[in-house]
């Protein structure tokens, strides 16, 4: 009896020892920063390290900051455009490449390569192709009288352009996840549906999509998170537009970076971070609601 108890304790002790390096690291570099963000939002911290208690000053400033509503709208628009669009493109690619395609493996690699490139390289590629008037894209679009559009320089188009570039760089990754999900659907389901005379659309809506719900949930959640709080919302914007023109692409991550490191206002940047976390929470809850928490059947 005492032998088993001591073995149990020994096992638990070993477990904590095995866990400790990562737990300390995660605590110090992820959990502590979150706690600190709350504290710092009440401080006035200059970039040179001088800290003083500022009460609710930073929060009051949120209310009178006329750039903040713009940044919120940009972040919201970016997610609401890029998430469904890359979902549809990723799923379309997976459906196209799932069946028999000559050299299908090579095509998958071609579609996946943009995802392997860094966002800095992605941004440089498109910036070059979109150079006003002389770039490849304006040159090709001259044929349909759209050659004059400044894709990154016109506030009307800049965010749409960033969305398009995002979809291009992420589609291959989502395609792979969908291919994994599609592979898990038993073939008998489709055979049975074919015998019942179900067409392509019918099979998609009544077998494929419901069976893909867990995959869809994962993809929607991760891509919404990536658009709202991911590095892509900083890297792409920093490289392509610096938030402009006229704040048309001012995402929250870019705005936070600007407040923290261009204006050296770490306290206010922390208050902005809390706003960002709140948005993320709303997006996560919305994703759970939309996909019913990844469950298979409507009625569960």
């Amino acid at each position, binding site marked *: 009896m005492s032998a088993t108890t001591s073995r149990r304790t020994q096992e*638990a002790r*070993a*477990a904590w020892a*095995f*866990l400790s*390096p*990562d*737990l300390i*690291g995660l605590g110090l*570099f*992820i*959990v*502590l*920063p979150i706690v*600190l963000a709350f504290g*710092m939002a009440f401080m006035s911290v200059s970039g040179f*390290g001088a800290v003083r208690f500022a009460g609710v000053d930073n929060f009051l400033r949120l209310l009178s900051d006329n750039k903040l509503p713009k940044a919120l709208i940009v972040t919201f628009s970016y997610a609401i455009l890029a998430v469904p669009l890359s979902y549809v493109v990723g799923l379309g690619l997976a459906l*196209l490449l799932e069946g*028999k*395609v*000559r050299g299908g493996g*090579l*095509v*998958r*690699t*071609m*579609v996946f*390569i*943009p995802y*392997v*490139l*860094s*966002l*800095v*390289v992605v941004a*440089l*590629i*498109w910036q*070059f192709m979109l*150079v006003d008037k002389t770039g490849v894209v304006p040159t090709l679009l001259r044929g349909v009288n759209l050659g004059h559009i400044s894709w990154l320089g016109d506030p009307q188009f800049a965010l749409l352009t960033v969305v398009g570039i995002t979809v291009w760089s992420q589609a*291959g990754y989502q395609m*792979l*996840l969908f291919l*994994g*999900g599609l592979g898990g659907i038993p073939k008998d389901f489709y055979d049975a549906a074919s015998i019942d005379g179900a067409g392509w659309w019918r099979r998609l809506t009544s077998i494929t999509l419901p069976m893909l719900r867990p995959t869809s949930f*994962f993809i929607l959640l991760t891509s919404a*998170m990536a658009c709202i*709080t*991911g*590095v892509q*919302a*900083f*890297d792409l914007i*920093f490289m392509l537009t610096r938030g402009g023109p006229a704040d048309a692409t001012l995402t929250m991550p870019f705005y*936070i*970076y600007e407040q*923290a490191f261009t204006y050296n206002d770490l306290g206010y*940047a922390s208050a902005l*971070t809390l706003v*960002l976390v709140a948005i993320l929470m709303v997006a996560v809850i919305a994703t759970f609601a939309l996909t019913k928490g990844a469950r298979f059947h409507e009625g569960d």
Partner: protein
Amino acid sequence: MKGTEMAARRRSSEISTLRSLAAWAVGLVFLAPFLWLVITALKPASETFAFSVAPLTLANFQHVLVQVPLLRYMGNTAFVAVVVTVIALVFHSMAAYALARLRFRGNMVILNIVVATFMVSTPVILVPLYIITRQMGLLDSLWGVIVPGIFNAFGIFLLRQVMISIPKELEESATLDGAGYWRKYTGIILPLIKPTLASLAVLFFLANWNAFMWPRTILADQNLWMVQQGLSSMQGQYGSQWHNIAAAAVVVALPTLIMFLIFQRFLVKSIMISGLK
């Protein structure tokens, strides 16, 4: 009967030809922007905006490798990526071993906390992480990139999922031989999860190689710059010298592409697993 069957078969082969054509067209559209970058890198400056492929030259590559300290940036980045990857694999496989194979109170709580940290991205903790790194004296040091870069919930979670599927009997016989937990972890579990460790190694290396935001935040000394930061700085300095920027971008992208093409199988599998679980 026979006739309709043949017609159906012919129809389905027509569909598969159409599908192949569509797939190749889509594949080329996706690859074209990168191909255009490579072609631009190989063309003289005067031809940058022309729809031509000849005459090809390596002059742009020579120029950027001599004029821009790209090799130094690549060296810094490789150092960071290798150190992070090695330490991360050791720490994460240890944590995963505890979570997957050892019984202790709080196992599920810890697992849930680890998974929850997966939702925290660099922009969210950027400011406090900067303060912590400054307090530790790691600003303007590659260790300021390495140390916070090690800790990553995805790796722990993926390794735990793989370890949990290993049969218990394998460890039980070792227990009878008097093996301790450390010996079971190194002698039995680690050899069995080599493929997962390999794919994580590739993923970690790529992630560090492509990292931009955090290195740019803490590395001011140009001698310490990492590769994406160095490449991004050409944007201002080199203005509209797109032939040189293209050459530098190709040099920076090349290691990741080579690595991806070599380890494609591993990578694809681990990405698919991550989506399913």
